[in-house]
């Protein structure tokens, strides 16, 4: 009796793992499902006349190494200067970056580039953004992070997209570029690649889009009506995505390989785990805030729930895979059930091969060279990478339970710039 209950329970877990794994693979490959989908990621080839004005928010904290370069890059975007407002958002306990920014601003001598220094009492990035939003004058508000390298034509592309299509939000692609600097970089870069290029389109088609942290273009009036960013969460971007979806904003995802905003991976494993912990903990906070329950359709709620608990779920399931293989050999199960226990492992191996194919695609579209050595590193890095993700997930749960909610900063040194 107990044996058969356990058997059914085990079967249920296996089925859940398989469904999750297949769904995950579907997310990875969504954009390649049908030929027409390619156009979703194709930026307009003919730009419309610049009509919309932009406010670019540039929040940063201790980014003196890269900030001046980023300011220059943003200032140099191909768009009429009088239609662009750049607000450098810095914090008062960060004199280094403030100094760098001031020097840069003095050098640029541009009226549309402003510096806004905020007090640290009221928190970090969301607070900076909210104050930046108050000063924003453009039709469209957007964020770039301190280490970002946006494409020079990005504003033209977004202007054209907003004029051509009835949208309220455009999430353009963000791409980590230094795919071969450390062993874990391959998979981290590919995660971004699949997430922005493929998975987000699936979310958008369901009406539940967890947005990225930058290169998101939102109509300012909409942003102001929503009341800006939530400063109580660690992942204000994902929270904003959900709130935009509750407000039924029309979200457009646009990942054209040519126009992605280039970023870098965390440069140490410690940084990587910290970053993951922050994201995962932010997701847990959003989960408990319960705002996602306000989404209209059940499918949207389920999808939101899935995204929010995904890191923990994946960590659990990854541990389960070796367990299920061991059970296959050591526990006498009915033949069909035993064959079924292999499904999650098969899915995991498939996602490994999908990652390899993704690497091939990535190096092709970004004009890098395919090297077999790197493919092998990716293969060997696959299992340890899952371990890192698992550590990130467990750590986030642990921190949340302890009540630690401080922001663990990810340092940037500009590896993506050295990479080419």
């Amino acid at each position, binding site marked *: 009796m107990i044996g058969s209950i356990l058997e059914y329970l085990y079967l249920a877990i296996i089925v859940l793992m398989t469904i999750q794994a297949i769904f995950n693979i579907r997310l990875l*490959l969504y954009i*390649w*499902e*049908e*030929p*027409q989908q*390619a*156009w979703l*990621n*194709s930026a307009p*080839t*003919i*730009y419309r*006349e*610049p*009509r*919309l*004005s932009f406010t670019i928010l540039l929040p940063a904290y201790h980014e003196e190494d890269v900030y001046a370069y980023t300011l220059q890059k943003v200032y140099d975007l191909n768009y009429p200067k*009088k*239609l662009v*407002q750049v607000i450098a958002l810095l914090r*008062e306990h960060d004199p280094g970056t403030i100094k760098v920014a*001031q020097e840069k*601003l*003095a050098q640029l*001598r541009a*009226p*549309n580039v*402003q*510096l*806004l*220094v*905020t*007090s640290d*009492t*009221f928190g970090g990035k969301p*607070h900076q953004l909210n*104050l930046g939003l*108050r*000063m924003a*004058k*453009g*039709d469209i508000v957007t964020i770039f992070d301190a280490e970002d390298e946006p494409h020079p034509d990005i504003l033209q592309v977004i202007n054209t997209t907003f004029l051509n299509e009835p949208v309220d939000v455009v999430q353009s692609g963000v791409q980590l570029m230094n795919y071969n600097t450390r062993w874990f970089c391959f998979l981290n870069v590919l995660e971004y690649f699949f997430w922005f290029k493929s998975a987000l389109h699936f979310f958008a088609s369901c009406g539940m889009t967890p947005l990225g942290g930058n290169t998101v273009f939102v109509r300012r009036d909409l942003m102001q009506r929503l009341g800006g960013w939530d400063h109580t969460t660690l992942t204000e971007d994902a929270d904003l995505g959900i709130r935009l979806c509750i407000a039924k904003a029309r979200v457009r995802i646009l990942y054209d390989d*040519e126009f992605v905003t280039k970023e870098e991976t965390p440069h140490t494993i410690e940084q990587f785990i910290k970053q993951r912990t922050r994201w995962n903990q932010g997701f847990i906070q959003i989960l408990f805030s319960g705002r996602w329950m306000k989404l209209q359709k059940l499918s949207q709620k389920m999808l939101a729930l899935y995204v929010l608990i995904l890191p923990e779920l994946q960590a659990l399931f990854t541990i389960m895979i070796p367990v299920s293989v061991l059970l*296959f050999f050591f526990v006498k199960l009915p*033949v069909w059930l*035993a*064959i079924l226990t*292999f499904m999650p492992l*098969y899915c995991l191996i*498939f996602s490994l*091969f*999908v990652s390899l*194919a993704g690497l*091939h*695609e990535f190096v092709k579209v970004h004009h890098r060279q395919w090297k077999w050595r790197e493919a092998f590193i990716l293969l060997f890095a696959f299992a340890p990478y899952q371990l890192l993700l698992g550590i990130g997930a467990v750590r986030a749960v642990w921190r949340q339970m302890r009540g630690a909610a401080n922001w663990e900063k990810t340092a940037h040194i500009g590896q993506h710039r050295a990479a080419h």
Partner: protein
Amino acid sequence: MSQKIEDKVEKDPGNVTLFRTGNFFVHAFAPQVKTGSLQRTGGSTTILERIRWTSAEKRRLVAAQTRLLPQLETANAALRQEITIPLALESLVVALAIFITLVVQAINIFNYPAYTAAEGDPMASAWALLHGQITPSVYTYNQPPLGWIQIAAWVQLTGGIASFGNAINSGRVFMLVLAAASSLLLYLITSRLSGSRSAALLAMIIYALTPLSLVYRREVLVDNIGTFWLLLSLCLITTGKSKSSTFVMAAAALGIASLTLDNFLLFLPAMLYAVWLYATPFQRKFSLLTFLYIVLVVFSAYVLLALLRGELFPPGVLPGDTKPHMSLIGALIQKWQTSVAPEQFAATWSTWIQTGGLFLLAGLVAMGINVLGGTVNRFQLLAVLLAATYSIILLVSHVVYPFSIVPLLPFMALNIALALNTPLRWLTRKIGFDLARALLCFILIGALVPASIQQALPLLAPDAALPQQQALLWMRDNAPRNAVVITPSYLYSDLRQPGSMGVGTGQPFSHVYIYTDVTSDSQIAYGQLKGNWQRIHYLIVDAAMLKDITSGEQYALLNEAYHHGVLRAAYGSKNDGTLIQIYQVILT
């Protein structure tokens, strides 16, 4: 709010701090210019600015010519259709053609050809499967079990193994259904590969009416089931409009095909080429990967089955595994170690030539033409690749039966249609009269149908299976139900199943064994029969079985029983090979 901020702005003499409260302050740099003049939507730009913009944009476009757009062209030969035919009419014609070919296929289906072991084995296994075993005796890993799993499902669906008289009949009706489906699939495939519906119809007619098809497609063979799945896979690839969901289904179909007949896994390269052709360049990489992986995963169920039963490796390979048992790898090795029998291949070859020499010759010539055409038209190359793949499988197989040609037939027909269609299209296009090509195809079809039917009718006329059915009836009426009966496989299910031809309304026979399972080293010879020929009561012997038990050393037990047997009944004649005899073993 911004108004409020501006009101509170402190005019700092250094022009640095615009605004300061408890939680933030604003720095600005000279010259201080209001940003309120940003443009609003609706564009208040001047005409001059717009002109400048337009010319700048033109310059940019000229410079940006090298921009890569996604490549989304699907390989679609069907787009070349020039003669429009309403779908309803097309369906009607195809349905009519399938109906005619099915009628021909169904003529005398229950009585011709005579039942063979190749038909009996899967039927007996299907019966065993419905009673909790993979095969009637030990599973030898000769074939993956999915073929007879499907037959068992069919039997369940149609209300039992005796729904159509006897087991083989039931299987043959299943084959009829599959033949209709396979014909339709070949039509769709050819239509997509050639872009011509008349050529597709021609291919279908050739496939359905060639004498080889008429004979072998009606037999209960796993080859027929596998061919259906193979064609389904190809059809999904070619008609799927490059959607990954259809590639997934196509991969699953090919997986099922190879689980039905393991040789079909060797079609993988040709099928990958088909995916490569039919996926857009944008999706190609991931489509190929998905297809390949899913086929292998589905096929791996066979390996896992062996692994689970502890029968993957031959005994002695794994530590502690010393007891003799069957194994998947052992069976594979044995298959390759079986010596090639040239005389057997020669006999098979002459059967083919006698039955369908013209068809095979036309197919070979067509393959040659398509190799040449394939340098320009990759669809022709695909057709050749498919036919060549199976030809190679046949050539390297150590044992080739006459029915082994079944999977080759649709691809030969495909090649013939393509080889006729493509040069004809080229010619008629030159003179601007494509209708002539279609007409020519129809004339060919018109000549082919009556000719093949005329040829087929006498071929299919003999009641070759009648003696076998009579033997079953004799057993039903005369043998006690607890008797130990040794029989060819095609009578097995009918002796075991209540209500079936060999049993009637009474109890089924409880001790029936297929003679190939009673070899000297088998469980049955040692266990149930205790190595004693006297435990055998009846032997039902046909020509093949007689040859085996009198010549093969492993059948010594049966041979002895045979020599102590008294002939109780004999049906058929020795001359046409339909002789079947029932011996009762007399105990001394």
